[in-house]
């Protein structure tokens, strides 16, 4: 039997009244699907100030082990606010097709 995709329940599997019994499960929702442009950081220019992290409306930017702020592509919708706010201009928005 193939594993059933829990995101596609049949009508019988829906809980009564469509209640959601697992608190905080919105974190499983992949908003990264919406993205048409992806933020890419030029590490040569980045000063690790974190202004992108502060402005990201979806809290989709995290600090990686090297100390750089990068987007979590599971959630990043590609709005480009980080690129707009970046002081050094180190973030480029790259079309997803490439």
């Amino acid at each position: 039997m193939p594993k059933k995709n829990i995101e596609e329940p049949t009508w019988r599997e829906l809980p009564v009244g469509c209640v959601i019994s697992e608190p905080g499960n919105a974190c499983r929702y992949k908003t990264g699907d919406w993205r048409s442009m992806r933020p890419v950081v030029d590490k040569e220019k980045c000063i690790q100030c974190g202004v992108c992290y502060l402005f990201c409306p979806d809290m989709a930017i995290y600090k990686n082990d090297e100390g750089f702020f990068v987007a979590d592509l599971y959630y990043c919708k590609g709005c480009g606010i980080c690129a707009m706010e970046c002081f050094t201009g180190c973030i480029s928005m790259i079309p997803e097709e490439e």
Partner: protein
Amino acid sequence: MSTNRKGIEVSIGAADAVAMADVDVIAAYPITPQTHIVEHLSEIVARGDLDAEFIPVESEHSAMSVCCGSSAVGARTFTCTSAQGLALMNEIVFIAPCMRLPIVMILANRSLSGPLSIWNDHSDVMSIRDCGWIQVFTENGQDVFDHVFFAFRVAESRQVSLPVIVNVDGFILTHMIEAIEYWEPEMVRRYLPEFNPVNRLHPDKPVTMGAFGMPGIFTEAKKAQNEALLSSKVEILNAWKEMGDITGRYYQPVESYQADDADTVFLTMGSLSETVSIAVDRLRDQGKKVGQVKLRLWRPFPFEEFRQAVKHVKKIIVLDRALSFGGPGGPVASEIRAALYGEDNMPLITNFVAGLAGRDVTVNDYMAMAEKTEQLAGSKVRQDDYIIYGVRE
């Protein structure tokens, strides 16, 4: 058997029944002809005779919103409205059944304006025909009283968990003084168990209610809602059976009068049914094989029982108390025709739109409708050949 009969205004009886059902929350806004029901409930709560919250909201939209909230935390919830009030609550009315909130509403049926009118017809309930609530019609004061308990019993059943509308014709039923046999408190306790909801907003077991449904889930949600309404019929029949065992009054989804050997039947809903019964008696006296079929259950529509009730019938006279403008005439006739489509020997169906905004429909009027239907026998009567009865040309 109880002999606790009272001569009482039907609205007051209905309010007493709601209080006897021990509701926890009543949220309502006054509107004619519903007022006597909620005013009396407000008095009962103010006197301290009923331990409930009476929430005098600022609009019907708020009333239904409050009802959703209180039902969601597990409070037995009641509201009551009419026509324009129902129109104002409309948005939330459709949400309650999807969230499976077992609210009970008495709808004191009144015509939707305009012209501005406070009198009785069924244009209000027909405007929310597809709202997903269980919907029943009542014929007299005893029906109304009994169906308050029935409504809570069915709505709150864990197999159902859906809201219920009890339709009561405004003025011509709500404001009548009739003999009503009151239930003993012990009968209510036996018939109506404590409300034990399937889901409840409670910190011990948090749930989210009313979340949005993406296109990937919406169709399944609607299918589940439809199946819930269809399968509620098991508990509806069960609740009527048990009520009969307690009160001696056995209600049915479709009820008949003199219909067993009839070749022509009137199809009625609500309080005009009793007048039609008198017309049936007179037509029988003239040797005409006329009977009557009454729809008590409107949603879920009792297809099976209805088809059985008219199986042998050659002509059906459908009474409509509302008009589908620019459409197929009356909404009831439209559904009756649809229910019989594809059946063998489909009967002739005539559709009379009558009794709009409280205009009297008398015994003689029904006899005239029967006569007109007799004249039309053998001819082709289509969906759009409805007759607005008694209109001045």
